[in-house]
């Protein structure tokens, strides 16, 4: 299905395809990059992110594993110790928890434990978030668990261009990176120039400038927030949208710089707001921009309930209207 060579000129590609291309290029650039996961070989992964990679790089580099996530991450730790750069695919967000122990107790702590003797250059790819009409455990947003864990880094691309570059940068990073892929955006397209220079991995990006309010978001919510900003513009409100891109570290400098100008901040994500990324942003930005803020930081997010059956997900997921509702409330202060 996919061709075996990385195309050279700008091309319209989906996020799924961009990730596939990025993985391929990373594997070409460094032959110690190996992929591990369930169904990533012949099937190419349930989302086809690893499509055709096993055919081209062989079974020792694209490894279908037994069905056990702790086993996958745990053996990846050993491979990293042996000098490999393992890229793990967790099939769905809800299936990362069996590996939580290895991630929190080993992957995150190995560098500190060894005082730097052992790096853990591992990438843990997780399709995350809702909106695809799936059954239970296939729509989770576990980012706060990982971002709260010292020793890990957490990033998420919102679009194909970032997908292509960020996966390569994550693989080159000497630290373990949890790489969250917004699965409901897998099929959205953008023009990708593989010869361009990528932005640094651990920086946020202003994706739409505006002076009335800052709207911070990431992953699947970036599209929604851009749409909300466009709708608000039609009513004369200029919203600055920031794609956070990196959740650990969080790019507070970028957010604070924006808030210093706008005086207002809304944070939107799919995850439960209670102790979600918005909590940390609200806390830190309020501390740093106390005298600039004209309204409290407002959060739009999932409710404090498990992700509902898919017929209700449109209510659970913050949509354009719920984002605008928060924007309106913030502007009313």
């Amino acid at each position, binding site marked *: 299905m996919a061709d075996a060579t990385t195309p050279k000129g700008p091309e319209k590609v989906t996020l799924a395809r961009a990730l596939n291309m990025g993985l391929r290029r990373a594997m070409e650039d460094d032959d110690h990059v190996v992929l591990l996961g*369930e*169904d990533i*070989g*012949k*099937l*190419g992964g*349930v989302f086809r992110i690893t499509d055709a990679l096993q055919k081209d790089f062989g079974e020792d580099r694209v490894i*279908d*594993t*037994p*069905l*056990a996530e*702790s*086993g996958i991450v745990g053996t990846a730790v050993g491979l990293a110790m042996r000098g490999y750069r393992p890229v793990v695919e967790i099939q769905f967000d*809800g*299936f990362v*928890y*069996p590996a939580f122990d290895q991630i929190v107790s080993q992957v995150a702590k190995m560098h500190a434990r060894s005082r730097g003797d052992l790096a853990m250059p591992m990438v843990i790819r997780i399709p995350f978030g809702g909106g695809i*009409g*799936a*059954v*239970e*455990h296939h729509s989770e947003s576990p980012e706060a668990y990982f971002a709260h864990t010292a020793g890990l880094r957490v990033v998420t691309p919102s679009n194909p261009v970032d997908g292509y570059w960020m996966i390569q940068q994550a693989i080159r990073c000497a630290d373990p990176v949890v790489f969250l892929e917004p699965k409901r955006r897998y099929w959205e397209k953008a023009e990708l120039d593989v010869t361009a220079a990528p932005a640094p991995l651990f920086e946020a990006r202003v994706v739409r400038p505006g002076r009335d309010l800052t709207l911070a978001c990431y992953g699947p919510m970036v599209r929604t927030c851009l749409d909300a900003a466009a709708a608000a513009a039609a009513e004369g409100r200029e919203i600055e949208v920031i794609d956070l891109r990196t959740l650990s570290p969080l790019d507070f400098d970028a957010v604070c710089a924006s808030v210093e100008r706008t005086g207002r901040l809304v944070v939107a994500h799919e995850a439960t707001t*209670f102790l979600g990324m918005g909590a940390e942003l609200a806390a830190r930005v309020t501390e740093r921009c106390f005298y600039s803020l004209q309204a409290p930081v407002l959060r739009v997010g999932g*409710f*404090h*309930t*498990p992700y*509902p*059956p*898919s*017929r*209700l*997900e449109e*209510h*659970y997921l913050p949509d354009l*209207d*719920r984002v605008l*509702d928060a924007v309106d409330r913030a502007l009313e202060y």
Partner: protein
Amino acid sequence: MDSGTPGELVQLLTPEGERVHHPDYDIDVSAEELQSIYRDLALVRRIDLEATALQRQGELGLWASLLGQEAAQVGSGRALHPDDYAFPTYREHGVAFTRDVDPLQLLALFRGVSNGGWDPNEKNFALYTIVIGNQCLHAVGYAMGMTFDRRRAHADSTDAVIAYFGDGASSQGDVNEAFIFAASFDAPVVFFCQNNQWAISEPLEKQTKIPLYRRAAGFGFPGVRVDGNDVLAVLAVTRKHLADARAGLGPSLIEAFTYRMGAHTTSDDPTRYRLASDLENWKLKDPIERVRAYLWRQGLADQAYFDGVEAEAETLAVRLREGCRSMPDPSPDSMFTGTYAEPYPLVDAERAEFAHYLESFAAPAEGGH
């Protein structure tokens, strides 16, 4: 891969519909019982076909077909007593049927109307479990509870539990820990592994190089491989192992050797990873055909009987189609009511706020949803 010696497979009804005998496992089945078994198999297959069709029509988000595994499920499900308890994966539609779960409730789950569907303690059938392997530990805990209850009541024997899982699931830590806890506590649980040869795209050899039923010996309890497409053998073997569990002999493992005839789910494309010829071979071992052949050739059922089952299946199909299409979406409010059993202020506040927010759209106003 060592696929086991032929003698390892318990079989009582050959693919051709010949009744054979087995020294350790045998069974006496009346004509009525056999007819009833056939009916279950046929209806279960029809439920599955209808669900697959409903998914194609957009009525379900997903469906996990049990095609080919009807005998493994109906045979084992029918071996259960009413007070026994079954812990399914997400594919046990046939077992659900034997536990009297309305198939519409299965459709509700795959339609995205519910994450559960039935009252587990009413049916003694746990909710579908999607996270591979989790339910095996629940099953063992439940069985431990049965033992504690029995000892409190100073009773001699107890009910039993059956835990379903797949060949792929056999690799999960939870499943192996379930083996350990079951052995440690002599829990009255039968582990029932439907080895359908595939875990999505991964063939059995990824998980194990020896027959799965032998795993049990390493944990100190008996394991047996049964022809999973032979409903009589499955019934006999499951009955026997449940009886052992009841009698206090502890856990055991049944590997039902079968084949996933369809895609993993309606989202899957098996042409990417397996050969059509494998499927052809397994078609010859169809679990329903052999029962029909046996009933027919032995004169245990006549055409009128088969026509009756067919008509019943048709009626059921109509009910499923209509029931599915007319299934109402749950109310948004229901998101908030299930999370906690006791009041939880934040959820209550979110519930009120969201109701208020939704009302703002209902009111005649500019903008809108």
